[in-house]
């Protein structure tokens, strides 16, 4: 009984820790938060998903807006930005009052998650 309570406590602490560090938010399929209701239908760290997101990025987030590979532009730089997935998903979905288009009605939820996966990979990448 006691060990059982301890296990629950340890699990809860680990869960809170994972939330605090953002690990769970960034990796777990199905983890829902805010505008990302329902969560991603795949692992955002999956290289194939990131690759498909990169292609979508090149086709929709051209150098006019975000820089190539998330490099410098007038829009916020995405490389080494430490943005979390909820922020990224929400921003792609709803756009921003500073002029970023909202993709909610013109792109499927799955594709927005692929874009999120790619931008998340940029956010964690080294600056260059």
């Amino acid at each position, binding site marked *: 009984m006691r060990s059982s309570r301890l296990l629950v406590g340890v699990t809860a602490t680990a869960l809170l820790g994972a939330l605090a560090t953002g690990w769970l938010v960034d990796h777990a399929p199905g983890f829902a938060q805010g505008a990302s209701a329902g969560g991603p239908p795949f692992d955002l760290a999956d290289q194939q998903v990131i690759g498909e997101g990169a292609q979508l990025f090149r086709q929709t987030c051209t150098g*006019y807006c975000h820089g*190539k590979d998330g490099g410098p532009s007038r829009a916020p730089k995405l490389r080494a930005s430490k943005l979390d997935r909820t922020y990224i998903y929400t921003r792609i979905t709803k756009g921003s009052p500073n002029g970023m288009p909202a993709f*909610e009605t013109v792109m499927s939820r799955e594709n927005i998650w692929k874009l999120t996966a790619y931008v998340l990979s940029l956010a964690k990448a080294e600056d260059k």
Partner: protein
Amino acid sequence: MRTMTSRLTTLTAVFLIASALLTCVAHAQSTGASRLTSDDPNNWPMYHRSYDSYRYSPLAQINRTNVKDLQVAWVHQSGVVIQGLEATPLVIDGVMYYIASNNRVFALDGATGKEIWHYYTKLDPVVTTLFFQPYNRGLAAGQGNVYFGTLDGRVIALDMKTGKEKWVTTLLDTKKCSCNFTGAPLVVKDKVILGQTAGELPIQGKIFAVKATDGSKAWEFNTIKNDPKSWGGESGKFGGGGGWMTGSYDPALNLVYWGTANPAPDYDWGGARPGDNLYTSSVIALDPDTGQLKWYYQEIPHDDWDYDSGLGESLVLDRDGKKLLVHQNKSGFVFVMDRTNGKLQNVWPMTHTYNFVKTIDPKTGELIERNPPREVGKPKFICPWIAGGRSWNSGSYSPKSKLWYNTAMEVCEEVTVEKQTPVTEPAAGLFFGGDQVAKHPIGGEAYGHLDARDPVTGERKWTVHYKYPPIGSVLSTAGDLVFHGDLEGVVRAYDGDSGAELWNFRTGSGHRGGPISYSVNGKQYIAIPSGLGSLVLGLYPALWPEVEHFPAGSAVFVFTLK
């Protein structure tokens, strides 16, 4: 005697009443179409000031002797700085009209800047999903109205005196096409002519005319020719084009000249759109009454680089008995045509940094040794960059000095072509077929310049260099002055003959719009729209990281003599 005096008094009264009535009639007509062809030096009644697209003011009160005494008369803030201030204001009979981001329209007292009215339209929320937004480049005027195309595909007429809506016509299904209007219309006789955005979209771009009095559609011209030789397979369905900037007009020939945009996808991986892709990247001459095509000249057959023809001015110029049209393509090459039939007279380059061709034959217009980016996934070094040898901003031609004052950009890029399937559901998605990043030219730093040149031969008289390639339009005046604002927010007046800097003022944000000059109650003014940004500005930080932090703005600065 008394009777005589009485008769004289009566006659005088009749004369005065008649004069007053005539004045009233003249005033009522003052915003009509007839006024647009007259050359009242006090006004700036259309986007390029005159149908010949000179952007030249005949006013000379401010000249090279006294320009040093210019001071701020007033400033007007539009209130929305997103994408800056890209417009060229109009001034008619002492009232300034201009449009800012989110289609905010203002009428201001030209002498004091005091607001007479403003009009903020309610935009469809679809606008927030678009690539081309929320900027607008200008208004048109005529028939007592001001006209503009909206970000959600409408054309609106406002009463010039009150700012009240006269009519609204929806021309585009923006929810479906993701296309809209961002350029200033052109009023020709009883019609308002304007072109849509389409060059980066898998749609067919058109140029429209609506009746100035009630907004009913008069005609439309499809810039995608229905011809399987010109568009192989299904490619024409997604061909892009359109005509997003403002054309010129020759009343004597009754022809409207309009530059068309690039085909979609911007880059062709080989077989994306077989054929020459008419009428994209072309200059077309249309009958303004019917929209019928009279002639065309395709500057970039099968455009492989996004080198639009849909930008800047088309100079209507007579020289040595020839009726010429001078038009700059985004590639940086200037095409000189016979405007009666479109036959090529000359081609010359505004820039010296280009490798997309070895050259363009000045007699035939052939693109010699084309260098297209075609290999999928392999970056290719191309000059000029996608922003062009010049962007959509306009130069200015002075009939006094016979010089064309025009800007240029010496910048390259690395293009990576990628196969792309056009997306049309639920709405048209961007259709670039690749991406790009700015690069310095081989062996040197990228830069920009303002030149004074002969518009027909390209002979250069003087040049001013800028670290950051400029994207603002140019104004020349009969006072032998040239005004131009740079990317860092400094507007300068140059001596039109020598290029010597005579005056400058820091407005605090860079320049993308069109400077103008006008006069109210005998006093000349210079109006300078100030405020970054612009889509192309997003390309700069790859070469100049500090540009990311150049402040946005949206204000009209108006100057006059002390």
